[in-house]
């Protein structure tokens, strides 16, 4: 199916009469200029079909479909340059979607609040959906190429590509503003480029092509990981395969030690160093683009917040850096779970008896309060002196110093004693000391321990220092317990003194967020001072690595409370596609889009996997007994193709069994892609090696044609649910409900 076009561009004869240099220049024109272009018509045809199939009527429906509501808000935030944290994955995927929006001139003004909401005119739907659709379309030729590079016939490769082409679930997923098709594209690209590289390895190492494909492997891997963390598993698979190949290389004794080393270094560079660098660069771009403070600020530490424009930075700018005796401060818990909060006290006291009958000290409550409040202000006091103002010059507080903390509004001292805390009876109560003239002396001395200190004489710094407060008398540590107090404590968070301080936990660490030097000695003046906003200027710039580490850590550890969804499913449902997802539903016409796969393809893919594994085991055991059913070459092909496809399926599927997040059918799509690639592999193997004579071969081919036609028919049958049009009647919809467990929305009039 390859055609060679030879284009003769220009044939010119020397005409004479022109000056010498010009003649020399035209010397090369003596020869006919020949451009030979090889065009694989298969590939072109597949690409065109893919594009048509994925891009057709792309901006329909002009409404928010399923997770577009989720990704859309991030696109908007990119457009507005507002910082956000998304725990679903690294930023590269979001950036790609936002790039689509940028090309379409999206201004980010759309309220992404409801699935099914109509897009307003300013939303460039087509260009927002373009990138996923393009990548989805390109998966078709990629599948073709991969099988060709695996040394399978063009026919098998064509089948693989067509199966991807007619896979309803992949089509649905790539026609919307979602990330799975982008992920699959990069995964396939990584595999293809590795195969190309490996095939070049034997004949021409260290040539330009070799380098190109090697580097492309690394780049595609990092893009896959950058889009979704699921890409990590395919990256690992590729690393493992590359590891095995390198191991063979080490065993190749025709190569000198130096060249082996060069080979290994090249692989290390391309497959490890470059992906890591690329991954970091995604975050670099992300953080550079998003410089404004926004809705997720609260999750980040004060230092990070101060590095964003607006928000906390506006407040903290110009604060004195070093905390001194007499400083007025607010203390924020570093962990901030279940919610970010500040050390707080108010006039109310602990109830004399709790609901369960235990008693309290009846002193003033100390809590952690998740809102900014004037009662969050504390004054650092030197126990040896009476004054509550900063002396001139200020005397900074250092690591190991002993301080008292005075609550700004009530001027009571932060105190703890051997009384059980309200909700955590194993820990000490923290209170602001009220002198009731009973035998309970004030114990208000706290030692400041700077945890992230560089030396033991470090100064306590605003925002930057993470501090533990260790009670001098009882060595209890000030801690946020995470429990919220009952009505009497206004549901604020409980603060306790942890007696057995096992190691460092972030819930025991505090940092100064707002800070100013206190000037007023008189209580009344001080109250006025506390109510007034802090003065301004100087920003604290964090280094990129510090910001990256924090953001990365937050992305990995942030837990979404929502653990249930109407369409969530378990991994076991995916193999048999016992579940579907209704993506969109037109309230009037009843048109709908579902994530439903091509049932026949899914079933065939499962059968192919099963057949592959059985045959593989059978061959393996027989070969161990030195009985070779198939020639050595065929065996190697069988192992490498299977290792890639079954391995790809396994690494993209099995990890979900141990994941604790909400899972959806679309999570299975990368695994499914690998499984689909396996179908032609198995089919070709069966025709080549198991159908020995002509008759079964013909029968087999006939069967294949029938099977493939039915795949196409199933695709056609379900395409109304894939593209959302044409609208089907209730009876037609009912006929499409092939499985009891599918949730197809049928309106009852």
């Amino acid at each position, binding site marked *: 199916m390859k055609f060679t076009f030879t284009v003769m561009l220009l044939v010119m004869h020397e005409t004479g009469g022109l000056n010498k240099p010009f003649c020399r220049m035209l010397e090369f024109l003596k020869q006919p200029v020949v451009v030979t272009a090889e065009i694989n018509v298969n590939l072109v045809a597949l690409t065109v079909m893919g594009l048509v199939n994925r891009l057709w009527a792309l901006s329909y429906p002009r409404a928010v479909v399923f997770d577009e509501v989720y990704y859309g808000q991030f696109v908007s935030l990119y457009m507005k340059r507002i910082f956000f944290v998304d725990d679903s994955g690294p930023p590269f995927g979001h950036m790609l979607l936002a790039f689509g929006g940028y090309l379409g001139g999206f201004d980010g003004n759309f309220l992404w609040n409801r699935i099914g909401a109509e897009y307003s005119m300013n939303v460039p739907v087509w260009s927002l959906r373009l990138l996923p659709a393009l990548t989805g379309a390109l998966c078709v030729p990629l599948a073709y190429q991969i099988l060709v590079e695996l040394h399978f016939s063009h026919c098998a490769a064509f089948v693989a590509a067509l199966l991807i082409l007619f896979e309803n679930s992949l089509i649905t997923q790539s026609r919307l503003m979602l990330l799975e098709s982008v992920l699959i594209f990069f995964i396939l690209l990584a595999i293809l480029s590795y195969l190309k590289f490996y095939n070049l390895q034997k004949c021409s190492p260290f040539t330009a092509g070799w380098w190109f494909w090697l580097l492309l492997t690394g780049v595609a891997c990092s893009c896959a990981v950058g889009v979704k963390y699921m890409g990590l598993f395919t990256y690992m698979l590729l690393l493992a395969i590359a590891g095995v190949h390198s*191991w063979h290389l080490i065993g190749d004794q025709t190569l000198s030690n130096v060249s082996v080393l060069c080979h290994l270094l090249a692989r290390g560079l391309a497959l490890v160093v470059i992906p890591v660098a690329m991954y970091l660069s995604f975050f670099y771009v992300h953080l550079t683009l998003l410089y404004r403070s926004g809705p997720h600020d609260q999750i980040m530490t004060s230092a990070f917040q101060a590095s964003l424009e607006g928000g906390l930075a506006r407040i903290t700018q110009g604060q004195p850096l070093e905390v001194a005796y007499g400083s007025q401060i607010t203390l924020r818990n570093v962990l901030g779970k279940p919610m970010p909060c500040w050390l707080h006290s108010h006039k109310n006291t602990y109830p004399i008896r709790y609901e369960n009958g235990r008693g309290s000290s009846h002193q003033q409550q100390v809590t952690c309060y998740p809102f900014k409040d004037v009662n969050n202000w504390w004054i650092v006091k030197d126990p040896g002196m009476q004054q509550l103002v900063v002396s001139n010059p200020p005397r900074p507080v250092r690591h190991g110093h002993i301080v008292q903390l005075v609550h700004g509004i009530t001027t009571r001292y932060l105190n703890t004693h051997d009384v059980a805390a309200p909700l955590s009876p194993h820990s000490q109560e923290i209170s602001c000391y009220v002198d009731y003239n009973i035998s309970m002396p004030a114990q208000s001395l706290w030692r400041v321990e700077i945890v992230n200190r560089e030396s033991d004489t470090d100064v306590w710094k605003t925002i930057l220092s993470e501090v533990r407060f260790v009670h001098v008398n009882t060595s209890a540590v000030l801690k946020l317990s995470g429990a919220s107090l009952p009505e009497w404590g206004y549901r604020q968070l409980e603060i306790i003194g942890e007696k057995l301080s096992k190691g460092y936990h972030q819930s025991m660490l505090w940092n100064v967020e707002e800070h100013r030097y206190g000037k007023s000695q008189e209580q009344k003046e001080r109250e006025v001072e506390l109510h007034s906003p802090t003065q301004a200027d100087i920003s604290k710039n964090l280094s990129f690595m510090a910001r990256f580490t924090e953001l990365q850590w937050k992305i990995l550890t942030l837990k979404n409370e929502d653990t249930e969804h109407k369409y969530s499913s378990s991994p076991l449902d995916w193999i048999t596609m016992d579940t579907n997802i209704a993506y969109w539903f037109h309230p009037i016409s009843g048109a709908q889009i579902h994530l439903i796969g091509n049932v026949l393809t899914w079933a065939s893919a499962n059968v192919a996997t099963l057949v592959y594994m059985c045959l593989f085991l059978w061959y393996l055991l027989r070969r161990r007994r030195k009985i070779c059913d198939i020639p050595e070459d065929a065996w190697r092909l069988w192992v490498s193709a299977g290792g890639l496809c079954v391995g790809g399926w396994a690494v993209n599927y099995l990890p979900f069994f141990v994941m604790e997040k909400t899972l959806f059918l679309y999570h299975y799509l990368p695994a499914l892609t690998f499984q689909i690639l396996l179908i032609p592999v198995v089919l070709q193997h069966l025709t080549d090696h198991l159908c020995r004579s002509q008759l079964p071969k013909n029968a087999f081919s006939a069967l294949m044609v029938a099977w493939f036609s039915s795949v196409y028919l199933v695709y056609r049958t379900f395409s109304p649910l894939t593209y959302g049009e044409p609208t089907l009647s209730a009876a037609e919809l009912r006929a499409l409900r092939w499985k009891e467990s599918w949730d197809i929305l049928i309106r009852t009039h």
Partner: protein
Amino acid sequence: MPGEGTSLRFPPCSAARTPFPLVLCAVVPGRRRLPRVGARMTLAAGCCQPESGPRCGGLRQRRPRRPAGEPSRPSPPPRAWAPLEAPGGVWAPLAFVTLLSFASRFHRLSEPPHVCWDETHFGKMGSYYINRTFFFDVHPPLGKMLIGLAGYLSGYDGTFPFQKPGDRYEHHNYIGMRGFCAFLGSCLVPFSYLTVLELSKSLSAALLAASILIFDTGCITLSQYILLDPILMFFLMGAVLSMVKYNSCADRPFSAPWWFWLSLTGVNLAGAIGVKFVGLFVVLLVGLNTVYDLWELLGDLSLSLVTLGKHLMARVFCLILLPVALYTTQFAVHFAVLNKSGPGDGFFSSAFQSRLIGNNLHNVSVPEHLAYGSVITMKNLRMAGGYLHSHWHLYPEGVGARQQQVTAYLHKDLNNLWVIKKHDSNTADHLDPSHSVEFVRHGDVIRLEHKETSRNLHSHQHEAPMTRKHFQVTGYGINGTGDANDFWRIEVVGRKAGKRIKVLRSQIRLTHLATGCILGSSGKTLPKWGWEQVEVTCTPYVKETPNALWNVEDHINPKLPNISLDVLKPSFPEILLESHMVMIRGNSGLKPKENEVTSKPWHWPINYQGLRFSGVNETDYRVYLLGNPVVWWLNLVTIGLYLLMVTCAIVAMKRGVQLTAELKELSEVLLHSGGKIMLGWLLHYLPFFMMGRVLYFHHYFPAMLFSSMLTGITWDTLLKFCAGRLSCSVGRRVYTYGTLALMLLIVYSFYLFHPLSYGMVGPMASDPNSPMAGLRWLESWEF
């Protein structure tokens, strides 16, 4: 050796089709298959004839045994490391290390004479066995059964309550139980000695590994108390030792020692899982080893398929069927012994509880049919399902409607009681004694009123708190007056309309009249506001699952006659399955609380933080579970060293470097023996990274055993390698002194740290005046 195997080899294809002649050959005594690796043959020699003559240099025995008559090869040149191994054999050192091990574990065993740490659980459970009361625990029963048995035999009467750590034992005899654990803990040392000896054939490696375990403060502490860990580690090491032993009998398959060690492996495996589910890791290790073994056998073409089948069947029998049988036997004994009702009843189904003497379901006599006005408890039919429960607390803001919570609760409680009422009339007439009894029938519409709070079971179209697809179930109304959303249709599975509803036996489904959803328990645990009870929802998806089915357990109706019901007693497999479901649920329920400092797996190998076994204050007798830091850091370094050495060895071999015979032997030990141990370490350590439950420092100790054995093998190999590079006399000295130095280091560090295990009194180490202050090398240690 050459010639022996080749004469048996048939062309590959015919070999498979004509197995017969091969069978004959294979069973001819003395005819063995080709040795796979040199080491394997010699391991066998060591194993199967342990007492055959004095050993002069373990390595010399590595030569494959030759058929008689073949001229012997010239004896190998003298080894630099021969001296340590020549005299005394292996038995004298074994006796010596065993003695030391017992001495170190039994020293001050009775101190402190109060309950330490988890003794409060496991001692209590031992008592339960002695008292035969039923309880529930997340671990399988063997360990606690053995503790109970040891207590029983040593004269403990099961009366001590074990309420909390720090309680004094007074006159109660607790030494028997501690002694039993210490005995098993002491056996770890000889086991590891023999294992390493078998694997490396080097006396000094075995001694090194043994001394590490003898002088590790952590191992000593963990063995001295009534805990499951020494029992678990005993079976675990037993399994590893017998696995190694049967591997080395590989050249004499189906001989008596082979069978003995193989079945002993199986027995130990059953023991290991029977104590804790962590035992699964050693099962995995043995499983992988067996697969590898079978793979090697499969590749040996001199064996017929029939012989292979025999090999396979022997392993299936000894390593699968035997352990499974033993494991089930443990449970049979467990259920037979615990026949009295106790604190664990509520976790199990009504049918299960009816087995227990003293439970209100045992030989139960209740009114048989439900009637209006009956007071009942309803139990969910899913495994480990709870009772339908409600209490005075409301759903918090933002979780559906702010109405009273309805949950499923595993414990028996007054708040589990509900009254059946007619949907349309209120209470009074049911209580009136003159009023005739009216039975509830299949298909009736009823109202369930919570007895304590007088609220009706209610559902509406709000999202349930956890399962968002379902509807919320609440308690609604005041004194029984609610609305139409309180009406439920009661149905019995598989019965016709109009039939009466039986206590216990009827499987009931409650359908919400207004929305058509079905009352069910999702099995998800509610957050703190719901007191970590189980969520109850109304599911709109009509499916026949036990989640949505209930049975009536208690039934109080003074107007009806009590009838003795012989409840369907569950069969043994059902009990077994149910108790496993309950255990798994219990285990996954052990989640760390928010903002709580927990031990992380990466803390463990670096000995970052110990566990306080006993004592908090300065005046207390304090015991602190912490590994001997020198030993643990040596282990840690060795893992890196091992990986480095292995990488060098395999790369060198892959690059075709010609190794001398000596080096080949060393790398053989390093790769195969060390590999097995390394695999064991990985299998016992890595899975903890993926566990969501609460983890403790002592979970690392099984892995630490492997790590210590690896240390023995690796350093011995390294020293031999260094010695081999040097001239004979210098090398010998390097080897001897190197080994001695390592051992002295270990002994000295033990001398420094021994108060950790044997008890400290006086100021805390954080106080500079304490004698231990200088030893607080890490700030996170708190002794």
